[in-house]
């Protein structure tokens, strides 16, 4: 009965207020990705920026007249002194470097940092991590929830313990270990440390616990091996949980800034998307917020698309309705 009720309006109202708070930074992010550096730093320009032509600072620096340029330009400006010529040339150079802020921001994002390459790396790395995680976590989660074996509690305890271990604390030993086997600056270095996900094991175990034992037994009677049960029975019934895990894993590693920064010290072509941000970071010497926000916007878009696709499955849901 989808009637138009006050409670429905209240619910929408609450959700909309929440959405406004949640969205505010994104609006700002998007807005900054449209503005010129001056507008950002000075907090002007409204939502979309004035979109007045601005001078691309790097381009201007690159084209700034040098001594030689002044010499050659002397013929063009016969009776001016050097400094006037320089001013004129600088103005010319600046004029050649004029761009709209929005163009500047997004162009910088893709040019100064090879963002497309980074996005591709992101896809490769997150997909490999997720697949390997599932491959390892699912059987373990199944064993921990549905198989009785001596030491199960201990293994589960270990999983819980591993959940507690912060990556920041073990980053250095891990880095050194990878260096020892010569894996730094490779895709493997980005993937290997994550292939066992205590989080994934724990999450899937919690959901497997809710699958009725009879279903597992039925599968055993049908001739499935324990491994087959994991992939053919547990996995499909736990699709929502798996999606939650997929989202978690992909989001975490897509956005991971810390680990790639540690482990990829040489090769820029191994960078993952967030490292594109550092291209525009200069600490106290001035961050280029516009391109940075443009990069951040670009980085998050694939995730939003993926999430929208994935959430259909959430709506369907697998209710365990084959049971009495």
């Amino acid at each position: 009965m989808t009637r138009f009720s006050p409670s429905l309006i209240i619910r929408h109202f609450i959700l909309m207020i929440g959405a406004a708070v949640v969205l505010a930074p994104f609006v700002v992010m998007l807005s900054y990705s449209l503005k010129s550096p001056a507008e950002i730093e000075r907090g002007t320009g409204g939502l979309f920026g004035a979109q007045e032509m601005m001078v691309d600072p790097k381009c201007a620096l690159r084209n700034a007249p040098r001594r030689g340029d002044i010499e050659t330009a002397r013929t063009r400006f016969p009776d001016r002194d050097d400094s006037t010529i320089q001013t004129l040339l600088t103005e010319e150079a600046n004029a050649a470097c004029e761009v709209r802020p929005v163009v500047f921001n997004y162009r910088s994002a893709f040019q100064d940092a090879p963002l497309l390459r980074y996005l591709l790396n992101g896809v490769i790395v997150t997909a490999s991590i997720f697949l390997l995680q599932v491959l390892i976590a699912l059987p373990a989660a199944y064993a921990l929830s549905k198989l009785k074996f001596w030491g199960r509690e201990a293994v589960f305890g270990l999983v819980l313990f591993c959940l507690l271990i912060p990556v920041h604390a073990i980053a250095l030993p891990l880095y050194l270990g990878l260096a020892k086997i010569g894996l730094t600056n490779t895709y493997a270095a980005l993937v290997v440390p994550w292939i066992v996900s205590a989080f994934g094991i724990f999450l899937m175990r919690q959901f497997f616990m809710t699958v009725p034992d009879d279903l597992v037994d039925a599968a055993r009677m049908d001739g499935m091996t324990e491994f087959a049960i994991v992939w053919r029975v547990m996995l499909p019934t736990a699709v929502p949980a798996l999606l939650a895990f997929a989202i978690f894993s992909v989001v975490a590693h897509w956005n991971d800034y810390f680990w790639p920064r540690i482990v990829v010290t040489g090769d820029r072509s191994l960078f993952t998307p967030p490292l594109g941000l550092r291209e525009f970071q200069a600490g106290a010497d001035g961050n280029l917020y516009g391109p940075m926000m443009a990069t951040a916007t670009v980085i998050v878009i694939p995730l939003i698309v993926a999430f929208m696709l994935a959430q259909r499955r959430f709506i369907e849901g697998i209710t365990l309705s084959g049971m009495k």
Partner: protein
Amino acid sequence: MATVTLRGIRKNFKETEVLRGIDLAIADGEFVSLVGPSGCGKSTLLRIIAGLESASGGSIEIGGAPVDRLRAADRNLSMVFQSYALYPHLTVAENIAVPLRMRQLNTAQRLPLIGRAVPGARERGREIDARVLEAAKTLEIDQLLDRKPGQLSGGQRQRVALGRALVRAPAAFLLDEPLSNLDAKLRVHTRTEIAELHRRLAATFIYVTHDQVEAMTMSSRIAVMMSGEILQCDAPTRIYEDPNDLRVAEFIGSPRINVLPAESDSSGRISVLGKGLPLALHEGRQTLQLALRPEALSLTHHTPLLQGRVVHAENLGHEVFVQISLDGAEQRVVLRTDPAMQAQLHLGAKVGLTFDPNRALIFDAKGQRQRNLLRALQEIPA
């Protein structure tokens, strides 16, 4: 097609003893029904045979070989679960196909998309589809093959569960109340199909049911379980007509068997409610219990053995159960009779009852059947 032998199977859930030493030898191709009150351990026993639960004691042999160390999948059994246990994410057709696919396709052939391309997969797949369709037709669920379990009615789900078990030919079938949610017509139909299958495959069946008609009509033998033990395992008519134990007699047969207090005098002569019967025991002076099936009682006008008043009547259409409160006793007895008689048997009517002493079953105070009866004692003076 194999024998199933249980020796001293015991099972505890923590402190509660659910099975207390089950011994049962099932011959190859036999159809054994397990009946017993709710909670007596039928499902547990089935699960132990299937290898899904480990027994706390005892051993199991299938086809003569011990299977205690064999996993469920390797025991080559089919099972219908009381709770259906359908795969919620698979359609009806896929649910039924699972046991075939698992056993007839190899790993490569089972792969989701590419599997069909593997040599031999296509033919096997078609074979499986055909078998699934056949099973579904038998169970009248061929219209539903594309539905998911969540979209089915209770009885339809149960039939899918049944289909999944019947689609292949294992060493033995274990069926746990497979027809409980079906209507009478379909139940009779399915019963016939199962009986047919049993004949055709000559497979061993272990069948849990609480439906006596099922148990009586389908079984080679019925095993009556109570509080974790098998009280009697015998052919249906033996169980009905010749129970070893009062509990069996009471459990089997609906309406319930009538039990009347009886006793034997010093000579062993048995009397019920003060009336001597032409029956005697070798030992005398016992408190006894005399049990009579409702159909063993008949109405009579002259020299009734028992007298009473009609207190309740249930008309099932083809027969009427009449409850009669006996004079001089607390018991009521139930009489099975024709609907045509109902006019005579209005509430409150006084009736006289008699019975053939040979159809009376005598049990001692503990419920043990007393078989050493001396009969034809008409000449013994009343």
